[in-house]
């Protein structure tokens, strides 16, 4: 039987393996269409990380430039699809709206999927104060809710806890020791407990990874399937979106939805990509009766056109956290703000204002090693933004450092005074040095010798 297949033209589509390999290469080289096809295919598959980042950066920079128009379009399309859109100037306004809505509809239990925006607007506190039960349904978030803690990572909120700690929390919640402590067993246990809550919830609250302006669709990516339940099971779905999280169309969305899981956890695609356009329509089998999109400004709008505008490109993938030696050393909770790591150190002061306690020193908790900027899939120059954030910070410490650096500047811009400083410093090192090392330095040097010695001779003596 001949294995030859022929196209309509009658040309051999799959050359038989007769003739030498070289002959076959010559034959293939003569086919311009083939080469074109292969190049197109290779370009679409083999897009390099750099190329993907460049494209993602361009998309996001453009989105931010065109933000007001994109948001108007988004708003119009969501309304067309039967949804409600609310623009909240700040977190308090957003939380007030959602809590008011829950009260008005007689909701007693709210099921939530993972959302940093709801952390930012302190929604759980607001709902709980109103006597409404809030259940986090993302496994990590539920663990934290049981522990009474805040997320330590944008994507993996409970990454700082181990299996044993989780099992203990589950036992406490269930009021029984009959909880397994292997991974699968813990997940199965959580699944059963959480399913019960889904059935009771009158309102589901989710975040939004991306809004697509051209169709008014919100995209929510996840790996556990809980966001799908949160957005489809309860009668009301409220999606909370930071105002910068909007792209123009599906071309852009497709790229960002590919970049996001890759940067977040090295995954080619998220397990679940939920695309939601308005509430349930007539004839549809499931979905909520009401869909509310709450778009939160919370200080973002004011960043457009400033030296911090690039921070708005962030797609909250968490890659900068995992790359950061500081975050890896202390975890996200030490930051004391919903957003931790390098992006948190940049945007927290911007969103909360320079006077907030977390804002005063967060930008300074970095060695400016630049690993974050390198890891960022949308090319935000985080280390540069950290330096700019430092320039904007205002606290007693920054005022002291301003005074110190004014003196420094006067001494170090002139060679004679600079050389005198250096000679004096070297003399001091020699005078205090024992065996080649100084173990206590005065003034600002005390911070150095608190944890390490200073060589009085170089190369240092072992």
């Amino acid at each position, binding site marked *: 039987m001949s294995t030859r297949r022929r196209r309509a033209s009658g040309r051999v589509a799959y050359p038989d393996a007769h003739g030498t390999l070289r002959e076959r290469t010559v034959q293939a080289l003569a086919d311009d269409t083939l080469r074109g096809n292969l190049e197109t295919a290779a370009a679409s598959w083999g897009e390099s990380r750099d190329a993907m980042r460049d494209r993602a950066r361009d998309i996001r920079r453009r989105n931010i430039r065109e933000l007001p128009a994109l948001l108007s379009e988004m708003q119009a399309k969501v309304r067309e699809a039967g949804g409600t859109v609310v623009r909240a100037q700040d977190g308090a306004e957003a939380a007030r709206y959602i809590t008011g809505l829950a009260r008005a509809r007689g909701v007693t239990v709210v099921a939530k999927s993972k959302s940093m925006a709801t952390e930012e607007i302190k929604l759980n506190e607001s709902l709980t104060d109103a006597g409404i039960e809030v259940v986090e349904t993302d496994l990590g978030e539920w663990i934290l809710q049981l522990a009474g803690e805040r997320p330590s990572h944008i994507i993996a909120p409970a990454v700082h806890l181990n299996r044993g700690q989780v099992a203990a929390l589950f036992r406490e919640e269930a009021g029984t020791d009959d909880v397994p402590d292997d991974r699968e067993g813990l997940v199965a246990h959580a699944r059963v407990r959480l399913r019960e809550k889904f059935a009771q919830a009158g309102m589901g609250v989710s975040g939004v990874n991306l809004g697509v302006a051209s169709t008014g669709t919100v995209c929510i990516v996840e790996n556990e399937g809980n966001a799908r339940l949160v957005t489809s099971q309860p009668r009301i779905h409220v999606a909370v979106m930071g105002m910068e999280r909007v792209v123009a169309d599906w071309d852009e969305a497709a790229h960002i939805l590919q970049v996001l899981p890759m940067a977040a956890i090295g995954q080619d695609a998220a397990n679940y990509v939920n695309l939601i356009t308005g509430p349930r329509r007539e004839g549809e089998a499931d979905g909520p009766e009401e869909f509310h999109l709450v778009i939160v400004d919370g200080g973002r709008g004011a960043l457009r056109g400033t030296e911090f505008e690039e921070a708005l490109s962030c797609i909250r993938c968490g890659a900068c956290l995992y790359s950061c*030696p*500081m975050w890896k*050393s*202390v975890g996200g909770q030490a930051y004391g703000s919903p957003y931790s790591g390098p992006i948190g150190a940049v945007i927290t002061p911007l969103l909360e204002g320079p006077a907030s306690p977390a804002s005063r*020193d967060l*930008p*300074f*908790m*970095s*060695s*400016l*090693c*630049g*690993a974050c*900027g*390198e890891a960022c899939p949308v090319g935000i120059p985080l*280390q*540069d933004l950290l*330096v*700019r*954030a*430092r*320039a*904007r*910070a205002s606290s007693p410490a*920054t005022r002291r*450092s*301003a005074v110190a*650096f*004014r003196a*420094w*500047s006067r001494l*170090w*811009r*002139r*060679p004679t005074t*600079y050389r005198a400083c*250096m000679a004096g*410093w*070297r003399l001091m*090192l020699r005078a205090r040095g024992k065996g080649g*090392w100084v*173990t206590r330095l005065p003034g*600002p*040097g*005390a*911070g*150095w010798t*608190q*944890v*390490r*010695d*200073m*060589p009085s001779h*170089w*190369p*240092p003596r*072992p």
Partner: protein
Amino acid sequence: MRTCLSDAVAPSVWKASRRVLERCGVQVRVPRAQTCCSQPAWTTGQADQARAVARHTLEVFAGPEEVVVPSGSCAGMVVHAYPEMFRGHPEEETALDLARRTIELTQFLQKHDLDPGPGTSGPVTMHDSCHMLRVMHESASPREALTRAGCELREMHGTDRCCGFGGVFSITFPELSARLGEEKARAAVESGAPEVVSCDLGCLMHVAGVAHRRGIPLRARHIAEVLDG
């Protein structure tokens, strides 16, 4: 450019750099009037004070020569931060010009294919300083220089990981800084080499200082000193 850290703690570093360059037949001028690139003030957010000192550096290094810096961090400051620092200021062009002419020591050797001849032989491990790696985007030139000099390079685990120095950061968050420094010192020792080498003196002062305090047996030298022999 001598760098202020070399002036303050290790004049042997800039002197070794000069000898290495001269051995390659390079005509070297070390302007006596130079002070500091201003990085400590810039990264602390004191832009005006930084600019005042950087302006002096622009004046000192005016002229057509290439400016060779035995530090990835100070070179990176001039190359990467000066253009932003002087954007919209009268010195903008001068700053851009200096940024174009500024290069780190081993990059300069590689660029001009210069071989200073044998340096210290024996095993060393190399710490990639963050600013050399991620601001100057260079990890090859120091390794090539070390190999050429006759060193046996033993790579440590996580050579591209920050040592925790971070300039002023090292005294504002000392515990965090020291934790990373200790990890770096231990990784260096585990490489099997008795000595850690880097293009940045700041990292070395910090890692050696932490190692000494914790009793970790590790020697440290700037790459210029190793190339000098």
